[in-house]
């Protein structure tokens, strides 16, 4: 009961409360929504530790068991520590050398001070983000640009009517977005706009209807306890 039925009861209660909440335009109802949204963010923030633990544990085992590539795991640990130490050091300094009382006007100000200590423009963590994470992530995503070109070559072969339509739509969209398209023929940008606003809209809208139906039915299954896979385990 306490392991299986109670969680299902909580899911049911929360689901029903928030369906009803949507139809009550009262301040208490709005506050409840705001609070619970914030609570969900807090739970998400704490749950991040699960992912971090899992990552660190995996790499710790790689190093401990001398598995092939353990040196890279060590590099990962080192980079992780750099980010964490650099991120938290200003706050630790702030705790050791707190703001003068006179400058602490309100809870909001204190909150803002702590919020910006680690992430504000020009902070050491921001430096890592701008000059470490940004070039790495931009390059990592841009690398797909090279592979998508060969993927496009394979996908855009006009072997059937469907493939031809796919090819034509993609060509018009790609040409319409570049100055070359307009230079070749002034009608290309207009065709691109028409493709996006008419056949694309129709297909997307129908797919959205389908997603909405699926989402509603899945949500109802969770609320009524039919879908229980998220609980995991047998007991």
């Amino acid at each position, binding site marked *: 009961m306490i392991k299986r039925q109670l969680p299902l009861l909580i899911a049911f209660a929360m689901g029903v409360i928030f369906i009803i909440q949507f139809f009550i335009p009262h301040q208490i109802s709005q506050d409840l929504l705001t609070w619970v949204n914030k609570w969900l963010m807090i739970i998400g923030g704490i749950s991040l530790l699960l992912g971090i633990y899992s990552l660190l544990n995996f790499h710790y085992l790689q190093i401990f068991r001398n598995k092939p590539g353990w040196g890279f795991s060590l*590099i990962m640990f080192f*980079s992780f520590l750099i980010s964490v130490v650099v991120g938290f050091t200003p706050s630790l300094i702030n705790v050791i050398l707190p703001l003068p009382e006179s400058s602490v006007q309100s809870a909001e100000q204190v909150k803002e001070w702590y919020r910006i200590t680690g992430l504000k423009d020009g902070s050491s963590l921001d430096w890592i983000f701008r000059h470490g994470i940004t070039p790495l992530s931009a390059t990592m995503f841009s690398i797909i640009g090279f592979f998508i070109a060969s993927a496009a070559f394979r996908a855009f072969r006009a072997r059937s009517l469907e493939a031809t339509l796919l090819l034509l739509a993609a060509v018009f969209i790609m040409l319409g977005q570049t100055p070359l398209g307009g230079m070749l023929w002034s009608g290309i940008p207009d065709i691109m706009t028409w493709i996006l606003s008419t056949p694309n809209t129709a297909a997307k809208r129908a797919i959205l209807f389908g997603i909405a139906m699926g989402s509603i039915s899945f949500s109802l299954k969770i609320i009524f306890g039919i879908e229980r896979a998220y609980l995991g385990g047998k007991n």
Partner: protein
Amino acid sequence: MPESITTMQIIETWLAVGFTLMIYTFLYKDNPIFKLGEYIYVGLTAGYAVCYAWFTVIWPDLIYPLYRALTVSFHIKQWEKPLESHENLWLIIPLVLGILMLTRFSSKFNWLSRYTLAFIMGSVSGMSIPLVVSANIFKQMVPTLNPFWGPEVTIFQTINTCLILVGVIAVLIYFFFSVEHKGAVNKVARLGIFYMMVSFGAAFGYTVMARESLVIGRVTKLIKWASPDYYYATIILLFIIIGLVVLTELFSSRGERTE
């Protein structure tokens, strides 16, 4: 060095060029230099995520308001500013639920995390139903059912409205599996496929362009950083990284031969 570029900017540039070229070595093949960049990326991002969660959620929305609420409730400390509406003892609920989530580490107590999961799934399901009905069904249905004709409606708009209505119905019929796709139903479903192919083509075209623009962005920066202002960062690091890739290749092939 021009006056506008500081030593710090030079260091930053060399770092960015190094990271960019390390990742681009993947274009040759998966190699240790790429892996080095990849693992640095994972480590820095994971550490940044921890700091981000702390500075944007855990401290300002949980620990600090809860600390203030607790000190006031138990008369431990008086604050100049009175408590704000969100600073209350109810914050113990997300704290407890968050801690319960961490019991997933334990094989004995991991069932406790079900309370948190149930809270999250129940709340999100309840919130999403009315929102999905409103945003994905009603708001999408209204422009689908535009008038075909009227004082301000042009013939072009009429044709487009008809095409959208027909397209929506055709695609919906394609996904309607309760009826066998034969005869007229099959023809309409096939029309739905044509609409979807155009849509997928548009999406693919957009994706290709977005990725290519990222490549152009990186390459433009590399070209900029190859200038004397940045001490030929791109050129020098390109040679160093190519040299390192060749060296690692030589070592790995020698290792294979020895085995």
